[in-house]
C-alpha cells in the first residue's frame, strides 16, 4: 500500500439527485466498515453541491483514520483537495465534471493523488473507459466495478446492490482500511440478506484493475477553467453581466450533467418545432433550412426532446460515452449526408431510413435509447 499510514480519504463522484442516496450509503458504509477494525472516520457531502441539481456532478466524501487526532489532521481542510480513492458511480462522469458549485470542468482524476485508485462502475471495458478519461498527469490505477449506473430519485433508492459491489471492490484495493470480511459483516448486520453479502464478494472478485501511466487517456475534452475575481475586479453591488439574447453562458455549460445525448435524424425531421419549444434549457438552434440542431455544450441530456418528438426514431437518446466531442452535427449532415446517416445508425442502432424496420438488436447497441429509461423524465425521478 502506498497510501499515507494514518488516514485515507475517499470521494464519491455522483449524479446529483439521482445518486445522492447511493453516494451517502457508500460513504457511510466505508466509515462503518473501517470502524469494525478499530478505525475512526467521518462521512460528509460537499456543502456547495447542495441544493444539487438533476444529474449535475456532485461529491461526497469519507475520511477514515487510525485515531481522532489523525482524523482531525486530515479534516483541517474540510473539503479534501487530495484524495486516495475516487469512486465514480456512473462511467460517463469520466468525461469530466462541471458542478454548478465550482468553476470549469475538472478531469475526473483531478483530486486523486499519485498512485491512487479511480473506481468506476461500468459495463464497459477498462480500455473503453480510459479512452474517454482525460490524459493522466500522474499514474493511478483504474478499477472497473462491474455494473451499470444506478439511478433513482430524490426520495427513493434503487436497491440494486451497487453500493455493496463498490464496497467489495474498495476492499480489494485498500484492504488496510476496508477489509472484505468487515464489509460483509456490516452488510449482513444491516440487511440480513445473503444476496447482498454475495454482491460485495462479486464486486471484490469482478473488479478489473488497469494501471494507468502518465500521458494515457484522451485530450479531446474541452479545457474549461476560470479565474475567480477579486474584490477590486468584481463589479460592486453583487452584479454580474446578464446573457444577451442568443448568447449562452460561457462560464457554465452543463454538458457534463449528461448521461445520454439526443441524436437527430435530419432526414425524418418534419420541422414541427416541438423539441425547440419544449427543451427546458433552450438547447436547440434553428438552422437556415428550418431544422433544429442540438447545441451539445448546453444540453444536459434530459430526453424531453425525444419524448415530445412526434416522429418515431427521429431523436434518439444514446449513451454519452459513445461520443468524443460537442460538435455541430447538422453541418456534418449538410456536408456529408450519407456519411452522417451511417454515423447516426452506428451510434443509435436505429436505421436512418424510416422504411427499414429497426431490428431488435438496437437495444444492445443503445441500452438507454428509450427516453423512458432516463431518470430525468421517468416517473419516480426528481419529485
Amino acid at each position, binding site marked *: 500500500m502506498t497510501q499515507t499510514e494514518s488516514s485515507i480519504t475517499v470521494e464519491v463522484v455522483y449524479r446529483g439527485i439521482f445518486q445522492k442516496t447511493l453516494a451517502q450509503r457508500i460513504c457511510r458504509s466505508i466509515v462503518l466498515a473501517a470502524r469494525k477494525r478499530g478505525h475512526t472516520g467521518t462521512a460528509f457531502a460537499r456543502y456547495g453541491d447542495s441544493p444539487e441539481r438533476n444529474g449535475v456532478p456532485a461529491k461526497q466524501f469519507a475520511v477514515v483514520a487510525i485515531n481522532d487526532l489523525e482524523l482531525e489532521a486530515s479534516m483541517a481542510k474540510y473539503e479534501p483537495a487530495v484524495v486516495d480513492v475516487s469512486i465514480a458511480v456512473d462511467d460517463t462522469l469520466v468525461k469530466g465534471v462541471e458542478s454548478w458549485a465550482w468553476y470549469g470542468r475538472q478531469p475526473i482524476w483531478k483530486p486523486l493523488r499519485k498512485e491512487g485508485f479511480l473506481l468506476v462502475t461500468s459495463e464497459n471495458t477498462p480500455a473503453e473507459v480510459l479512452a474517454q478519461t482525460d490524459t493522466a498527469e500522474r499514474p493511478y490505477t483504474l478499477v472497473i466495478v462491474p455494473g451499470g449506473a444506478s439511478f433513482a430519485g430524490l426520495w427513493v433508492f434503487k436497491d440494486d446492490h451497487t453500493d455493496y459491489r463498490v464496497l467489495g471492490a474498495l476492499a480489494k484495493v485498500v484492504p488496510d482500511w476496508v477489509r472484505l470480511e468487515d464489509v460483509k459483516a456490516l452488510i449482513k448486520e444491516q440487511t440480513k440478506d445473503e444476496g447482498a453479502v454475495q454482491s460485495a464478494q462479486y464486486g471484490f472478485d469482478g473488479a478489473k484493475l488497469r494501471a494507468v501511466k502518465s500521458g494515457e487517456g484522451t485530450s479531446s475534452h474541452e479545457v474549461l477553467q476560470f479565474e*475567480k*475575481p477579486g*474584490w477590486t475586479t468584481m463589479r*460592486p*453591488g*453583487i*452584479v454580474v*453581466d*446578464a446573457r444577451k439574447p442568443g448568447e449562452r453562458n460561457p462560464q457554465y455549460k452543463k454538458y457534463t450533467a449528461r448521461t445520454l445525448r439526443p441524436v437527430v435524424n435530419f432526414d425524418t425531421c418534419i420541422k414541427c418545432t416541438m423539441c425547440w419549444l419544449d427543451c427546458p434549457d433552450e438547447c436547440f438552434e434553428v438552422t437556415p433550412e428550418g431544422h433544429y440542431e442540438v447545441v451539445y455544450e448546453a444540453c444536459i441530456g434530459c430526453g424531453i426532446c425525444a419524448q415530445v418528438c412526434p416522429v418515431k426514431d427521429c431523436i434518439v437518446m444514446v449513451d454519452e460515452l459513445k461520443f468524443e466531442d460537442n460538435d455541430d452535427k447538422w453541418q456534418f449532415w449538410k456536408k456529408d449526408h450519407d456519411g452522417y446517416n451511417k454515423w447516426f445508425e452506428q451510434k443509435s442502432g436505429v436505421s436512418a431510413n424510416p422504411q427499414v424496420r429497426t431490428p431488435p438488436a438496437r437495444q444492445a447497441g443503445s441500452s438507454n435509447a428509450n427516453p423512458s429509461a432516463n431518470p430525468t423524465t421517468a416517473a419516480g425521478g426528481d419529485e
Partner: protein
Amino acid sequence: MAVEVKPRESSDVETEQLATGCEAIAEAIRLADVDVMAAYPIRPYDGVMQAAAKLIANGKMDVEYIVADGEHSQFEIVKHACAVGSRVFVGSSGVGWFYAFEAIAVTAGLRLPVVAICGNRALDDPGAFGTEHNDSLAVRDLGWLLPWAETAQEALDLALMAWRVGEDKRVSLPVAIGLDGAFLTHSQQIVKIPTQAAVDKFLPPFDLGDRLLHPDNPITIAPQVDQDWLMEIRMQNDQAMRKAETVIREAHADFKRLFGRGGESPFLDEYMTDDAEFVFFGQGTLALPMRVAIRRLRKEGHKVGLVRLRWFRPFATAEIVRSLSRFKAVGVIDRDYSFGSPYYGGVLYNEVRSALYSQPKRPVVVGFIAGLGGREIEQPMAQEIFEKTKAAASGDLKSGDTTHWIGVRA
C-alpha cells in the same frame, strides 16, 4: 386618483415652519424630489406617512406613494425601485423595523442607497411607544449608515445629507436616520425650509451608472455566490463604508456653504467642552436635558460638557478618540441596552471603550443606561449621571467597569 401637481416651487427665499420631526422629513422628501416611497403604518413612523400624504394631496409633491401589505414588502418595494434608478424613501419603527429585517439586510448587501428613517421605539414585548435605540442599532453590523438627529431641523438636514452621501458612487450604501419617538417625531419645532434651488445645488440627480437594472443594460443582481465570492463582496462593502467618512465630510462642508448651518464637525456636536474636565456622551434628544444640567452645573463651578454623536455608522473613530482623550472621564449615556455584553454596558459605551483602548492617554469611561422606553431623563437623573462621572474624573471611582441604570425603581 389623479392629483394636480403644481410646478415645483422655485421660491428663492428660505421659509420657516412649525413642524414635527416627521413633517420635517416629509419636507425633505419633497425637496429631494423622491420618486418612490413605501409606507406601512406604525407609530411613530406613521407621522411621516401622514405628512407626505398631505403634501401629495395638496399638490405640493409628486411621488409614487405605495402602501405596502407589511414592513417586509415596504422595504422590498423601495429596494427594487432603487435598483431601477429611483430615488427612494422608506421607514418604520420598533418591531415593524424588525419585521422588515431580511429586506434591510439585503439592501445593504446590494449596495442600494435606500434612505430610511427609523422612528426609534421600544421593542415589544412589553408593548410601548416611547423611544429606545435598539431598533436602529440592530442593523449596526450590516452596512447601513446610521445618523441620529436631535431636532426637527437636523432631521431635515440629515435626510438631505443621507441621499447625497448614500447615493455617492464611492459609498452606495443605504442610510437609516434615527429619530427619537415622540421627543422628536411628534414635537413641533421651528424648522427652516431651504430653497429648492439650494437643495438642487446640494443634491445631484441619482445615477446608478452601469448598475442600473434596465432592459438596455442587461445585468443580473444578487446571484447565488456561495463561499467562492462572499468574502470579496463583504470586503467591497467594508471599503465603501470606510469611504463614507470622507464623503460625509465633503457633503457637510458643501451643506454648510449652501445652507449656512451644520456645526463644526458632521460627526460630533460638542457643547461647553473647551475647558471641560469631563463630559457626557450620547446621541439623539437626550442632549437637551443634559445641556440644561450642564448650564446649572457650570453655575456651581463644575467644568462639564457634552459630546453628542451624530453618526453612529460610520463611527468616526479617530475624531471621537481625539475628542474624548482630552477629558478625565466620559459618562456614556445609552438609550439602549445590550444584555450580557462586556460589563453589561450599552452599545455606545462598549463602542467608545473599544475605540479608546489603544490610546496612551484615555479617560475613565462610565456607562449609564437611561431613558428606556421613552422615560424622560429628568434633572435628578442628570445629577446622578454627573456625580458618578465626576467621581470617575476625580479618581474616586477607579474604573468604569460598572454600568449604572439611572432612574429605575427598586
